[in-house]
């Protein structure tokens, strides 16, 4: 129903889609990109593209799966556009996500841990980063990841293994115990 209303270019349907999926799309894009401002721009771009490309959604997967696909492609396009730009410093982009009352030392350790993981993720090729984010951050099933990335389930399994191996090796090299 929502997709049909989007096809009719109903602005209220677009507002409902943004309200329903912006959190998940933001997490995915945030897992793929480092730059905070770029995340917001790419998320916005994702929904605008979805509004205009809804005709390519045939309903053979969930709307959210299709939106993930639009988001991953938008993030990849952004990475291509900014490939030659110098990366920002880690301190700039990792927002502290801590519960109130959490001991300061644990907050510091958590923050350092997140920074290391993000740095290790950043070093991965985009195809490995995408599969890890969709699995670890969003908890998508293998078949859903396969639909989002337009690859086979076997390739999802293989990429996840190789991505984890690389991530693990890099974290070990960074001294993350």
């Amino acid at each position, binding site marked *: 129903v929502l997709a049909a209303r989007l096809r009719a270019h109903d602005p209220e349907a*677009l507002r409902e889609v943004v309200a329903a999926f*912006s959190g998940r799309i933001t997490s*995915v894009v945030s897992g793929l990109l480092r730059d905070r401002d770029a995340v917001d721009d790419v998320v916005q771009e994702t929904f605008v593209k979805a*509004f205009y490309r809804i005709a390519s959604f045939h309903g053979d997967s969930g709307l959210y799966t299709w939106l993930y696909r639009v988001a991953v492609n938008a993030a990849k396009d952004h990475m291509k556009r900014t490939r030659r730009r110098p990366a920002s410093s880690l301190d700039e982009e*990792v*927002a502290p996500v801590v519960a109130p009352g959490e001991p300061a030392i644990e907050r510091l350790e958590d923050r350092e841990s997140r920074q290391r993981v993000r740095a290790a993720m950043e070093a991965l090729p985009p195809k490995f980063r995408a599969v890890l984010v969709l699995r670890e951050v969003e908890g998508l099933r293998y078949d859903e990841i396969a639909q989002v990335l337009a690859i086979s389930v076997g390739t999802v399994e293989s990429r996840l293994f190789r991505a984890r191996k690389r991530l693990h090796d890099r974290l*070990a090299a960074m001294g993350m115990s």
Partner: protein
Amino acid sequence: VTDADLHLLSRWMDGRATPAEAALAEGLVARDADAAAWVRRLREASDALRAAARRAPPEDLADRVLAAAVPAGGELAAFRRAARRYVAAAAVLLGLGLGGSVWIDRSGGPAAAATPAPGLFADPADARIEEMVLSDLDGAPARGPEPGGEHEGAPR
């Protein structure tokens, strides 16, 4: 720990291992410190990745998306409406043209075409006045109507 072991552990972490594979993976983690460290480190990395990626979208995201998408969408709708109007008008004109040509073909032409349109001055007296006025303007003497000749505005 071999790559095959790590591949098995990766499947097991995702709940994709068969019961037999799961038993193998659990045994491997229990007896091999490297395998256990591999799984633990990746689980910690997974938690950290989720925490790092967690962020709220901007509050005004929906407004920003609509501002970026809907004006162009409005233009598209206006274009479609205009296109529909043009198509309808073209269909009407085509219909009139076809109907007219069929009517002319059947009747031998419009009846009105056989009757000369009345001139500006249909009355002969008025026609003479018209000729005089035109002559004055041209600076030439007024001429009477030529027999058999055409007179502008006068009926034949």
